[in-house]
């Protein structure tokens, strides 16, 4: 019998990256549509292991695993809504996009929404995503009632936060970045809404101090709150947008009949090859200027559709390509309130290496949940996009890491693509506890990702 060359690419092998398009690795992609197929994939696992992948919206290497079987769950997308309780049970491959199309007209919204709706429920639980309401309602995991997961022994388990038997495994899976098993189904509480519009208050602030002072003063009065910061301005000026779901009564009369209409616009494409030079200090400065000026100085109760308020980036399908072939990183950290000066220091540091970021977002977090690897903790979180090709970036970000770690803060795994294993271990003090639970759930070490290898999880 003739031998097959180990160098030849198989049909099911694909190069995978995260949203930042850095550090690709080759894996066998296995689309599944049943629990049995997930179990089979785990039973047949090779030495490089298995990993679940959602829509690949994590920025770094969380949803890729070189040489492994990467399970694509997009076909596991059933939705079953209980309209009397608001509980929904979904296949974990369902996207926020499809879920909202099904539930908004029925009067229900997701309890937590990330900044894009092109994220799966599996990805949302695995990264324990946060939205603009974290300061009052916590992260996605706080709202999950049950997870069905296939563990490293191929067993299907129901994990429940209120069950002494499984609560530890439940919280290890929330924020566990796919390393405790493959979630196949999840049940969580939706929130009732009587319109698909958001009532939004906007404030323009002349500098960072004003932005932060205003957020401390009055964030608690709002369910949703976020600030955009002009990362290239010396002052750190910004625009705060805050709001809540508008009630049907808040709508003009002629809109009330169709209060729950929901139709996010089709996605536009960015041109295929944009030179990375297009995004530079000057174009970003112009963008930021326009963005700042566009915002009203002070406006109350403006009505915005869900997609405009929660998912403004989704209007351009593949905007991550504007950063060119070198890709980009998103630096997102959280620091406690006592260390609020780190926010300004971070902005200055990014300016000093000439990192143009037009997506610089500041938010306040409420209290943390019990998940050992969950990112949010009370304080300030700043997220900034930076093109990966900037000279001196690696050293500058390492210095920032130190600042964040010394302030008792940490980085978000769903965005990370470059922190050191030491940085991670020192800022997630419950890592060992998580590892013990993970080892129970996956005693053979089947679940592996490039991120797990990079950070020695």
């Amino acid at each position, binding site marked *: 019998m003739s031998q097959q060359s*180990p*160098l030849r*690419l198989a049909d099911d092998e694909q190069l995978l990256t995260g949203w930042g398009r850095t550090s690709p690795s*080759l894996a066998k992609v296995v689309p599944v549509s049943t629990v049995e197929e997930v179990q089979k994939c785990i039973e047949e696992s090779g030495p490089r292991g298995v990993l679940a992948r959602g829509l690949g919206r994590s920025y770094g290497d969380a949803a890729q695993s*070189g040489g492994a079987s990467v399970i694509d769950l997009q076909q596991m997308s059933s939705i079953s809504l209980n309209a009397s309780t608001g509980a929904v049970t979904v296949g974990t491959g369902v996207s926020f996009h499809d879920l909202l199309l099904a539930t908004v007209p029925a009067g229900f919204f997701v309890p937590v929404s990330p900044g894009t709706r092109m994220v799966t429920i599996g990805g949302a639980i695995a990264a324990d995503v946060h939205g603009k309401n974290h300061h009052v309602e916590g992260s996605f995991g706080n709202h999950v009632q049950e997870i069905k997961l296939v563990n490293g022994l191929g067993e299907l388990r129901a994990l429940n936060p209120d069950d002494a038997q499984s609560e530890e495994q439940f919280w290890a899976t929330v924020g566990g970045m796919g390393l405790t098993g493959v979630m196949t189904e999840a049940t969580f509480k939706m929130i009732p809404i009587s319109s698909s519009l958001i009532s939004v208050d906007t404030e323009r602030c002349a500098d960072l101090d004003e932005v932060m002072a205003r957020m401390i003063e009055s964030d608690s009065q709002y369910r949703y709150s976020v600030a955009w910061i002009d990362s290239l301005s010396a002052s750190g000026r910004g625009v705060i947008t805050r709001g809540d779901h508008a009630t049907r009564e808040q709508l003009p009369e002629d809109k009330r009949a169709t209060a729950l209409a929901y139709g996010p616009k089709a996605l536009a494409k960015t041109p295929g090859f944009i030179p990375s030079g297009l995004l530079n200090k000057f174009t970003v400065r112009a963008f930021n200027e326009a963005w700042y000026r566009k915002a009203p100085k002070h406006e109350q109760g403006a009505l915005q559709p869900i997609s405009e308020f929660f998912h403004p980036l989704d209007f351009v399908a593949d905007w991550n390509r504007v950063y060119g072939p070198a890709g980009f990183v998103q630096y997102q950290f959280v620091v406690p309130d006592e260390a609020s000066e780190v926010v300004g220091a971070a902005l200055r540091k990014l300016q000093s290496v000439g990192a143009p970021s037009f997506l610089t977002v500041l938010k306040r977090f409420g209290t943390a949940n019990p998940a050992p690897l969950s990112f949010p903790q009370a304080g300030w979180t700043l997220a900034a996009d930076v093109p990966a090709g900037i000279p001196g970036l*690696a050293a500058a970000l390492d210095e920032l890491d130190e600042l964040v770690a010394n302030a008792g803060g940490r980085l978000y795994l769903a965005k990370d693509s*470059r922190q*050191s294993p030491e940085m991670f271990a020192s800022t997630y003090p419950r890592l060992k506890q998580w590892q013990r639970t993970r080892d129970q759930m996956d005693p053979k070490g089947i679940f592996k990702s490039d991120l797990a290898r*990079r950070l020695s999880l």
Partner: protein
Amino acid sequence: MNDALGDPQSVLVLGGTSEIALATVRALPRNRLKRVVLAGRPSPARDAAIAALTSAGIQGVSAIDFEAKNTTEHAVLINQVFDAGDIDIVLLAFGVLGSQDEGEANPDLAVEVATTNYTGAVSVGLRVAARLKGQGHGSLVVFSSVAGDRARRSNFIYGSTKAGLDAFAQGLGDALHGSGANVLVVRPGMVRTKMTTGMPEAPMTTDPEVVANIVVAGLRKGKNTVYAPGPLRFVMTALKTLPRPVFRRLPQ
């Protein structure tokens, strides 16, 4: 694997005492570097190389025994290194210059050069490539030479081994295209190392550190081939087009 900013975590050097390879290891970004394996024949030079890299602040430097001519041992060796953890960069840097005159007088010596530089490289090169493809990422850097671009009367034994190695490495790079793994072929001119001590310097002779920086930049940019120094590319392109009678009359 390399992180998003291109910083590697692990390096394997085949030919662990090569001055060019050691300069390359020193020139790599080292913020995330935690494992460097020097594969080579046991010698005081190998011990010294570990000590030198370690005292330069590089972590996790170790050695493993490797003889290029013992191809039957290569499978075990390469698997052992990769089973202990992914390798981001492999430097295939072993090689001997040999003596052209002695080789002509005693062909067994010429065969030694060919076995080391070509046969040995084919043996480890294929095995390394399979493991890089298997882990889904990584770079193999192959130190070829301008001597392989066109064989000269004065060193065609060595030159032909590099020509063979160069063709092999290019083919290997094509085989790995799209696999997450890649091959960088490096064609240095004359470099001031122990391989060339005592020899008259050719034009454009350079230092290991210069080659090292070119290799690191080539890796970062995902290049397939680099010359060191860079302008040698044009010199060699010109030389390759010279008719044989003219080429023969050039100073060798």
